[in-house]
């Protein structure tokens, strides 16, 4: 006889526990449980049958997977929580009694919860960690831009945490610059999105995307609970630390990259990192503690080797670089005392310093998009964003700090592009160029170039010009069809071959291309508008009705006035008639087609009678969503056509 099954001992009733049951079982407070859940990545579940999971009660409850809670029972963190609770009590007592020595001793032996095991547990492989890096990077960046008291009078964010966040995000970027792994940039209304290709376990590339808000003070709503965010941040910081360690180690670099104390003293928090090759560091100090002196020494050595290795750079360029190094300047920032408060809002540094020491990059500079160019960043552009992007793509950057104006300083000759985000007259531009040949562009040009992985024409990107739309590089296949983009791409692809041969004439080529493109576009538009070669109206009319003699006569008269020969006229008429006939035919076919479609539709309707109920419902759902999507698409397309029409009208009048 089969075993008697009792209610509530198997299935959903056994698989799920409510939150209160979990709390009782773990004997911890709700806030500790929350922390544990965040750190361990435990989340509520939605049982298929809530009533069954809740042992017959239909009261609203949050359910957790029974085994998740079971595993929490022997979590080392739980022990740490308890230890900390005891410690807090002891410390409070000691302080209350004024036993300062005891308090000091206790404070020294404070139990510290480490999250290393959680990182390994939650992300057993490096690839998994990378796949989940988006949220950590977003949050860490967000915190690096926050003040210590985001909501006055509420939870404080320790300034050390903020400093660590900004260190982590800079280290991440430094790594991205060094390995040139930046693939996409997108300027959204929420901020700038970046995407990197990061080599995971076994060399498979993982795409990591993160968002950096624009450099403004963040608006923090009062209902944001920073305790939750800080708990997440604890885990994320640990995770990013380990990821960076792995990435740096694979690049044969010392992690954490030592801080140049001198630069640090000058108020340089991010730029003070120096990338040090592992061997050099080991030679200096066995313990891994890198002294300032050692760093200096290492830097010198690397500089020398870097100059040797950098074959592509000409002699003068090298000089220029050295000059750059020498007079390397950084963003002015408030004094150190203020900085504690202000770490968040402080603008980032130039990346010159970051890369000054990087030895031969892993990818050859030749293949990089911007390697032949030097960009001047005008002061209203965000150096945090554009320096990172340009350097990651192999370009060189001169900021407005080293030279207040592009024409200033010795670097003026090496500049190829000036990135400017404000209107400027052509005269002024020419004046500043003073014979040199600079390309004046708005920052969007860089993002568009990166996204298309090629240098696009700077036409339309000039200062003060109305920019072409900036499209998301993550637009999928189901997005709105834009024929003009396709064509542009094709043209660009054709042009690219020519581009390779003559580097010098890129600009002009691009311009030419653009022009020709424009022309073609126009032609295309005409074609699509008329749908056929243009004929005089009378001729058209007669073609429509070939039997009508009066129309024919009118057409002949018109031809005479136009000065067309009779033979030509005949040929034209014949052609027009033919075209017309084909059109009529196609129309008829179209009508027939729709009829047929209708008939087919009727038939399909009938076949649907034989579907099972389940399938019929599924089919309806799918059809509904398809229809929704199509409607959305159609709406956008319609809007686009309307806008184009309006624009054309405006252009004509």
């Amino acid at each position, binding site marked *: 006889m089969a075993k008697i099954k009792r209610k509530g001992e198997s299935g959903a009733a056994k698989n799920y526990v409510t939150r209160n049951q979990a709390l009782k079982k773990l004997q911890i407070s709700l806030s500790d449980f929350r922390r544990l859940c965040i750190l361990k990545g435990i989340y509520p579940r939605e049982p298929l049958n809530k009533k069954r999971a809740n042992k017959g009660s239909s009261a609203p409850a949050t359910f957790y997977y029974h085994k998740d809670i079971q595993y929490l029972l022997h979590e080392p963190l739980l022990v740490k929580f308890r230890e900390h609770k005891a410690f807090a009590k002891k410390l409070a007592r000691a302080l209350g009694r004024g036993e300062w020595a005891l308090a000091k001793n206790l404070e020294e032996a404070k139990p510290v919860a480490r999250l290393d095991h959680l990182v390994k547990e939650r992300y057993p*492989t490096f690839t998994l*960690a990378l796949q989940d890096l988006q949220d950590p990077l*977003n949050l860490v960046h*967000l915190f690096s831009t926050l003040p210590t008291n985001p909501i006055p009078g509420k939870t404080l964010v320790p300034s050390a945490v903020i400093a660590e966040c900004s260190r982590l995000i800079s280290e991440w970027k430094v790594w991205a610059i060094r390995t040139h792994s930046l693939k996409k940039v997108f*300027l959204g209304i929420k901020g700038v999105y970046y995407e990197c290709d990061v080599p995971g376990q076994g060399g498979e590339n993982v795409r990591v995307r993160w968002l950096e808000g624009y450099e403004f003070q963040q608006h923090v709503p009062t209902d944001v609970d920073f305790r939750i*965010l800080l708990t997440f941040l604890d885990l994320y910081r640990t995770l990013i630390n380990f990821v960076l360690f792995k990435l740096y*180690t694979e690049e044969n670099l010392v992690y954490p990259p030592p801080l140049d104390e001198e630069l640090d003293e000058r108020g340089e928090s991010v730029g003070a990192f120096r990338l040090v090759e592992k061997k050099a560091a080991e030679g200096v100090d066995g313990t891994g503690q890198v002294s300032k002196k050692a760093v200096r020494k290492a830097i010198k050595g690397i500089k020398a080797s870097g100059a040797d290795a950098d074959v592509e750079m000409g002699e003068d360029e090298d000089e220029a670089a050295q000059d750059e190094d020498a007079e390397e300047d950084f963003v002015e920032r408030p004094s150190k005392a203020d900085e504690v408060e202000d770490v968040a809002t402080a603008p980032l540094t130039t990346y010159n310093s970051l890369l000054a020491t990087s030895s031969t990059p892993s990818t050859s500079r030749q293949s990089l998009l911007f390697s032949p160019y030097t960009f001047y960043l005008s002061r209203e552009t965000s150096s945090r964003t554009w320096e990172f992007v340009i350097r990651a793509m192999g370009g060189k950057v001169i900021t407005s700090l080293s030279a207040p104006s592009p024409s200033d300083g010795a670097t003026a000759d090496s500049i190829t592009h000036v990135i400017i985000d404000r209107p400027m007259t052509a005269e002024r531009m020419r004046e500043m160029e003073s014979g040199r040949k600079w390309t004046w562009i708005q920052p969007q040009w860089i993002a568009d170039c990166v996204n298309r992985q090629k240098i696009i024409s700077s036409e339309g990107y000039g200062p003060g010009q109305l920019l072409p739309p900036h499209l998301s590089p993550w637009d999928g296949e189901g997005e709105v069809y834009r024929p003009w983009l396709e064509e542009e791409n094709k043209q660009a692809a054709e042009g690219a071959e020519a581009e390779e041969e003559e580097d010098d004439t890129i600009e002009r080529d691009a311009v030419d291309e653009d022009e020709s493109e424009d022309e073609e576009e126009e032609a295309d538009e005409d074609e699509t508008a008329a749908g056929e070669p243009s004929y005089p109206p009378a001729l058209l009319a007669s073609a429509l009705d070939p039997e009508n003699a009066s129309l024919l006569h009118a057409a002949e008269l018109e031809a005479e006035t136009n000065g067309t020969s009779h033979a030509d006229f005949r040929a034209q008429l014949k052609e027009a008639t033919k075209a017309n006939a084909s059109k009529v035919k196609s129309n008829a076919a179209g009508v027939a087609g729709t009829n047929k479609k209708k008939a087919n539709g009727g038939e399909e309707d009938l076949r*649907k009678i034989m579907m099972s109920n389940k*399938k019929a419902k599924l089919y309806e759902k799918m059809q509904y969503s398809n229809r929704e999507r199509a409607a959305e698409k159609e709406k956008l397309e319609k809007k686009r056509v309307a806008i184009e029409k309006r624009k054309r009208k405006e252009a004509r009048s």
Partner: protein
Amino acid sequence: MASRNATASSSRVASRAAAGPSRVPPSTKTKKRAVEEISVEDDEDEFGAAGSGIDMSDDDEEEEQVEGEGGEDDQEEEEFPEFDSELEDGEEDLVAGEGEDASDGDDESDSAYGEEEDDEESGSESGYNSSDIEAMYDSSPATSPSSSHKELSTDEKLSKMIAKHSVKPDETLGSDAKISGAKEGVGRLVPSKLVEGGYKREYEEYEAGYGSESSTEDNPNTVGNIPMEWYDDLPHIGYDVNGRKIFRPAQGDELDKFLANVEDPNAWMSAEDKLMQQSVQLTDKELDIIRRLERAENPDADYDPYQPTIEWFTGEGKERVMPLSAAPEPKRRFVPSKWEHKKVMKIVKAIREGRIIPNKPSAAKPTVYAIWSDADQANAPHAMYMPAPQLPPPKTAESYNPPEEYLPTEQEKEEWENMDKEDRKTDFLPQKYDALRLVPGYKNLVQEKFERCLDLYLAPRTRKVKLNIDPESLIPKLPAPKELKPFPIACSVQYRHPGDTRVRATSVSPDATFVASGSEDGVVRLWDLGNGREVWRWDLKSGPIQYVEWSPYKDEALLVALVEGKVVVMSPLALVAPTVAAATLTHVNTAFASSAATTKMGAGKEVKGTEAIKWVRPSEKERERGVLVYVEVPGTPKQVAWHRKGDYFATVAADASNKSVLIHQLSKHATQSPFRKLPGAVQRVAFHPTKPHFFAATQRYIRLYDLAGQTLLRTLQSGVKWISSMDVHPGGDNLIVGSYDKKLAWFDMDLSAKPYKTLRYHTRALRSVVYHPTLPLFASASDDGTIHIFHCTVYTDLMQNPLIVPLKILRGHRITDGIGVLDLRWVAGKPWLVSSGADGEVRLWCS
């Protein structure tokens, strides 16, 4: 004994607590005790003087109050009760043992009792009383009793010595000796007579005390404590020791009693003593008790409920310091621990030798290290593991400079603003800025990140399978309708009824020449199938025609029409071939010849009330019009089902209770009711096309009966709410059922008792379902005004399910009053369909 003693003392305490300190012992006893106490006191006088250095405790005062009656000079009585009693006892015992031996009778036991009682009193009143405590405190060598020994008489000394040596020194002689004495019972050690030099403990007789039976009060009643009513009818009241009767004391009669009462001024305060059989005069004290009891007062006159409180431990100079132990602080409390010292020295040594480094920073793990290696393996996938979904990448709509079509119109903006936050498709409105420098900071960045965090740890996760299939693949693969031709496609002939009357029924003659229709105006019309001309009509003048049906027998032209209470058998004799007409007439009229227009029930069982069914020959005039027979039946018959041979037909009248289903035989003019009891309201019936089986459909079930064996063969569960129509496949193994709840159920009777397919494609109730008699077609008509044509191939192979293919929807009938198409018939041998509708039309649909 010890335990008894203890319990007795405790009970005493309880009783005293209830009764208060002033007891009311029997006077005799009190006196005796007083004497005893005095005698004891005499002995103690010196002792009391010796102990005069000791503080007078409150205890004594209390004792004084309590024992007020006892005597004035027993002040010192309780000074050292434990010592006294023990010693005294011992001494007395010794004396008694030597002198009077066993004859220490009442006196001694009484004295012992007295002693003991006092003992107990002090012990029980304050189990751990203050005098004890003080004694303990003051037990310094200076005030020890030994010093006072000098003042003791030599006799006393001697007796004490004897006592000391004769009694094993008691360790508990200290602080709580008294308690322990009380506990273990104070017995006397008496030299054993049996064992040389041995002692035995001998306990005093225990007197239970006041109110007990063994009290010293002499009881003149010698008959014993028996209910005296036993002797009510006897002259005596018991027996004396020698067995002689004790006679009842002389008592006067009632009059005497009354007179005595009147005469005796004390009569009111005398009571009858049952045991003594005499009246006893109550003492003043007893009367007082009675009075007090009447007034619900404490019966004890001396009891003072408002005594002043006695402060034992509170008040000036009476506070006690805890702990109560007088033990001196041990030395170890003041001397540093040797072992601790040793331990500390060990550590000190270890530190000096460098084995222990104080304040050494713990060898912490490095903050970062290589946590991942290339050999790492991902966890095995588990059904309950659901990683959080990644944030979707930003689309062009989020661009700071999107193409213009992405920008919302004013209306869309307003809609977005008015929508709830949860309902919005995107959390932002697309916006366009001319230059990057004009883009403001995004206000909701922190909020969004916070919400993401909340989602990560608070949002329940479920696995949702996203089907990535072509929806078209869900549609079953069926042969194209055009491959399954011929089937009716279009309406070719219309048979219009005047006045748009509802045409409830239609039928096509088996030779496919005529269409009969029965309309609600009570006329059965006969139409030429091909050209739609009305060729004949019968005006039955008895309400709407419910049903018409041609006999399927081709050699006869018989038509049955149903009206209220009547089944009419007709034939268009003038229109058919003479041979057919003759055959029809013979078939119908033979029975008239034999039974002259009478009614006869069939061979079936007699059913009560069948006399109502009559086969009536119509009048001559009607017969000329072709009406052959009337069968008068109960209720309104609604359906006719012909047997394939054209002799039997069944009618259903739902409102005719147990005679709703009737089977009529034309050749014999016989009617039988096959069911004695019906399983429910029968909706439709049908004959099996080949076997002698009979289908009857109730509202929900279809039952198959064997007519020959008269048994129920099967019950099919339709799964629909209300069956409206039914038809049997010509093969006999399949069945379709239409229902008022818009469903069509196909039964494969070889397969199951439940429908093989239930189709729901009509939007209104189904009215009629019919199989084509020869072609693989069936059709259904509904109130939605449409007729659906289906192809249905039934395979002879049992393993293969029937193939059903929807072919065509025929539209044309108008819906009037919510009713569309009412009846359908196929034209025999052709893929043509005849339908009748509520719009007063009969239509012929041709391929």
